[in-house]
């Protein structure tokens, strides 16, 4: 993306419908003119590949135009626009960063993000496809996570330790018996295979629920379904998963999952799900593909 530009370069004249849309939905309060902004909107909608089948003005109606106008004026370093951006969003950004970092560190990270928005024109990346505040939260979140990664590896080490425990087929208690260890390893591989059979949406549902510990209500906007529908989907996904695990256990070990997991609590399965889902398909050391 073109981060460093300081002035919007006008592409071919935008559709009159976009100009009308701007007149209707945008409060033109900065020196950025309607025509200049229309050019920016036309540029943004021209990049919406998944929606090429829709006419540009229709695509433009789905954008947060007023937020995009503010961001575009900020890219041009209009002082009024920056003042408004600061008043409306900077406190929120600091608060949001505190979800990831301690107070002082959160402040530093947000200051860096703000400097980045200003000096390197990062706001140019905002395309109005979400509210500006949500986009800023996303930027802050990644900056905070990167900062945390850079300053401490403790969390990663913890994760590695936990993963090692899971890899050994146990969530905490050592499995002294080699046959139990082998069964646990097999069980884990079977589960990993079963998880890979799920759709991305089903995997994300499980990850958000078990790994990120989101409530169903918190997933509603993202997954585009009511919490009741998500609850049913979650139940169905778990049933599918369990059935698949049973089939695979029968195929691989000639016994039911119930028999295979001797010494491994089924209740642990849910607890381990987040870690197992995180493993990329190639992460398994051996080829356990099902014939």
């Amino acid at each position, binding site marked *: 993306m073109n981060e460093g530009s300081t002035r919007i370069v006008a592409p071919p004249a935008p559709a009159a419908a976009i100009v009308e849309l701007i007149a209707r939905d945008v409060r033109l309060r900065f020196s950025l003119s309607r025509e200049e902004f229309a050019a920016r909107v036309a540029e943004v909608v021209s990049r919406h*590949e*998944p*929606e090429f089948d829709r006419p540009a003005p229709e695509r433009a109606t*789905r954008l947060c135009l007023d937020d995009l106008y503010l961001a575009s004026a900020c890219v041009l370093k209009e002082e009024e626009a920056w003042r408004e951006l600061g008043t*409306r*969003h900077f406190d*929120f950004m600091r*608060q*949001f960063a505190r*979800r*990831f970092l301690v107070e002082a560190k959160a402040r530093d990270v947000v200051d860096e993000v703000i400097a980045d928005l200003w000096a390197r024109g990062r706001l140019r*990346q*905002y*395309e109005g*496809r*979400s*509210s500006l*505040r*949500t*986009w800023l*939260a*996303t*930027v802050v*979140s*990644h900056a905070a*996570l*990167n900062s945390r990664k850079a300053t401490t590896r403790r969390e990663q080490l913890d994760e590695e330790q936990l993963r090692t425990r899971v890899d050994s087929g146990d969530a905490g208690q050592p499995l002294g018996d080699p046959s139990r260890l082998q069964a646990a390893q097999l069980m884990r591989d079977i589960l990993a295979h079963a998880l890979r059979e799920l759709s*991305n*949406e089903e*995997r*994300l549902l499980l*990850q*958000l629920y078990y*790994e*990120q510990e*989101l*409530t169903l*209500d*918190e*997933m509603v*906007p*993202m*997954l*585009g379904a009511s919490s009741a529908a998500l609850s049913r989907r979650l139940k169905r996904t778990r049933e599918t998963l369990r059935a698949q695990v049973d089939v695979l256990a029968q195929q691989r070990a000639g016994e039911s999952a119930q028999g295979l997991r001797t010494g491994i609590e089924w209740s642990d399965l849910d607890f381990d799900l987040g870690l197992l*889902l*995180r493993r*990329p398909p190639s992460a398994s050391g051996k080829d356990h593909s099902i014939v």
Partner: protein
Amino acid sequence: MTEQVHDLQSLAALAEGRLAANERERVMAHVVQCAECRRTVAELGRAMADGSLKESNRRTSKVLKGARVWLPIAASVLVGTFAWFQLTTNAPRPVGSGAPTADAGDATDEELLIRRSAGRKVGDKTFRMSGGVWVDSAFDSSLDWPTITVRGADERSALLARLPELAPYSELGNQVVVTWQGTVYRFEP
């Protein structure tokens, strides 16, 4: 979108449920593999649910902000008027006049009104602001105590010259109700 290149605009749009089906699938395919993006969308989901991502609408905020300021004031005025009405109508009545005294229900209401309002400690007494009047917490309208109403600066000075102990209480404001040695002193402007 790969693990290294996070499409933040798409993530934000995913969190708000604004993506078209095919783009949503593409972004989800990345998110299930990327711990960072997963953590981000999880926090966005939480923030959206707890309302912190919701910016107060600037166009309606003036009205709402106005309401936030004026509604409590209006409520205070209403409550204050009611409390003042209670104080004046439930003031000590002549014994045996046959006039109804404040019943338990009224007393409870008044107590509640007073308890909800601001308080201030002067010496060993606590006062509550009720309808613009500082009222001594020891004041009980159901007690048939004699009441002396002190109106204006002259009367106030004359009384305080006689009873200087009341001076700290009278300094609370223009309107103060204080009990002192079995008498209710009602300072008014």
